[in-house]
Structure formats: structure tokens, C-alpha cells
């Protein structure tokens, strides 16, 4: 055996020797799987939309800023959920109000939303079925742990009684759907 062959055999033996070393003790590893369930989103109707007394042939508009308990008064929905989360607020809007078999068109829906229960400085938007994104904002006045966010949504519209509109009380329902975005 030549010297080069001796060295080669030695290397092979060394490699084989390393592969048969004893298996080490069992290694235990762990990881933490966590989740934090945020605050559920909830809605509360604070005010209904009141047109009040309307007159045949004269459109009656309610602005989001109107707040007369006898009418005109804007509709108002309060949304509460996880602070700083976005929500998509969508609307199902009636095309008319009804009184028995009579109906009266209602259109030109308008809205304004604000983190606090005031229309001062509120953000205007147009209520729609496709929805509007709004952010739930915390209020420093909230009690600890201050994880909640708030949004107040004011809704207005215009009722259009015909000149021959039958007298009576006309009603309809606006459905407001809120989902975390």
C-alpha cells in the first residue's frame, strides 16, 4: 500500500467513526401559540329618523345635524368595538315610507360620522349599500383599560310628499350593518 492509499483509508475510517457516535439525549422544544380576541363590534340605535310634520307637495329634508325631537331629527347609530379598528358600515335604505297602502318617496340620503356624539366637526358621507369605512376611535374619558373605540353615525334624508299625498303617519326602516374590516 502506497502512502497516498494509507492516508485515504485513514480519512474514510475517521468519517465512518463519526457517523456511529451515540444518539444524544432527547431535545424538547416548544413554542407559544397565542391569540387575543378583540372586542366584539356592537351597534345601538340612539335616535330614529324623524321628518315630523310634512305638507303635501312640499319636500321635507332632514339633515344629519338636525336634532329636534319633534322633527326634523337625524337618525343616530352608535358603534362600539375594538379601538383603532376599521369597520365597514353599510346601509339598506328604503326608497319610500309607507302608510297602509300609501307610499311616499324618500331619497337624498346623507350622513355624517364622528368619534363622539356630536355633529360638530363630523365627516360627511353618503350612506350606501356598498358601505363606508370608518375607524373606531378611543375616548380618553373611557374607563381603563381603554380598549374600546367609538363611532357615531348620523343619518338624514328627504321625504317627498306628492301634492295629493294622503294624510297619515308614514314609516320605514333603515338597516345599518357593521363589520370589522
Amino acid at each position: 500500500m502506497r502512502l497516498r492509499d494509507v492516508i485515504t483509508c485513514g480519512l474514510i475510517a475517521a468519517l465512518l467513526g463519526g457517523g456511529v457516535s451515540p444518539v444524544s439525549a432527547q431535545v424538547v422544544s416548544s413554542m407559544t401559540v397565542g391569540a387575543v380576541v378583540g372586542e366584539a363590534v356592537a351597534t345601538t340605535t340612539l335616535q330614529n329618523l324623524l321628518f315630523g310634520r310634512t305638507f303635501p307637495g312640499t319636500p321635507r329634508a332632514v339633515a344629519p345635524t338636525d336634532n329636534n325631537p319633534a322633527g326634523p331629527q337625524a337618525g343616530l347609530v352608535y358603534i362600539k368595538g375594538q379601538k383603532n379598528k376599521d369597520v365597514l358600515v353599510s346601509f339598506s335604505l328604503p326608497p319610500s315610507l309607507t302608510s297602509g297602502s300609501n307610499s311616499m318617496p324618500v331619497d337624498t340620503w346623507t350622513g355624517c360620522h364622528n368619534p363622539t356624539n356630536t355633529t360638530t366637526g363630523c365627516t360627511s358621507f353618503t350612506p350606501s349599500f356598498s358601505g363606508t369605512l370608518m375607524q373606531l376611535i378611543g375616548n380618553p374619558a373611557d374607563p381603563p383599560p381603554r380598549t374600546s373605540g367609538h363611532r357615531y353615525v348620523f343619518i338624514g334624508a328627504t321625504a317627498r310628499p306628492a301634492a295629493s299625498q294622503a294624510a297619515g303617519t308614514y314609516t320605514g326602516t333603515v338597516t345599518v350593518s357593521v363589520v370589522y374590516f
Partner: protein
Amino acid sequence: MKLVSRYTLGIALVASTLAASAASAQATVNASATVASALQVFTRDLDFGTVFPGVNKAVDFADAAAGKTSGRFNFAAEAGSTISLTWGAIPSSLTGPGAATLPFTASGLEGCSSTSATAVGCTVNYTFASGNITMPAGTAGTQTNRYIFVRGTVAPSASQAAGAYSATITVTAAYTGS
């Protein structure tokens, strides 16, 4: 919005129609309006009946007999509402055959606004100036009535041409919205 978000949104909206969930919520706002009673105007013509040349003839507010009847506008509208009245030109004479005119006396036509249909006790208190009037109070959704009576005195001349004479008083009434 990313595609993934669209799917998420779609699922959430469907869920909201099935049951309340932590990720969505729904509220309803009732919308209501009370439509007032229709506005109506009924008239009774001012009728001097037969007059004779050179003899004045007066019709007072409370006159309601055939041949001597005061004019009366009867406004029927929502209780407590306000309506606007816009008057056309108030005639100072009647027009008859061949464009002949039959004048009123200097006091012209006079008005009395009243809630009484009979004008008993009515005095001159209305000038036919355009403006608003308030309907008497009453049950919401019902009509109340206000009346404006018209009186005057015609002064046919001694040579007044015989024939029928007439003029028109026009008023436009509308709800003001309050």
C-alpha cells in the same frame, strides 16, 4: 381592497344575515313622517244682486242671502299650520257691457279674517296684503278652517248701463312647511 379582503368581507356580510357575531353587528333606524292634511280652498262669490242706477248697494260680511251675499274664502288646512296667501290685484270696479265699469265706493273691497263660517261679529281686519296666516289649532292630521270674508259697496251712476258686471279676486294659497 385586496382580493383576500373581499372574500373576508363577503363571508362576514353573509354571517351577519344569519346570526349576530363578534365581527359584525346590525342596527335598525325607524324613519317616520306625518303627512299633514291637504290644503283646500272653497269660495263663495260676492254677489251684489240687482242694483239700480244712482243707488249704492252695500254687502256686509254677514250677508248670506240670495242676491246679497258676501264673498268668502274658506281655507281648510292642517290644524296649526301656516299657509301663505298671495293675492292678485284687488279690483276697484266691476266690468260690464261694452267695457262699462261699475265702481266701488272709496272704501273699496274690505276683508275680515275669522274662524267663524258665518262672520257674525266680523269687522274689517284684513287688507288683502300677501302674507302668512296661521290655521286654528286642532288635532294633528285634521283640517281646521279659516275664513276671509269680502264686502263692499257698489256705486252705480245715474247713467249706469244695464247689464251684468263682474270682476275676479284671485288668491294663491300654499303651505309654508311649518
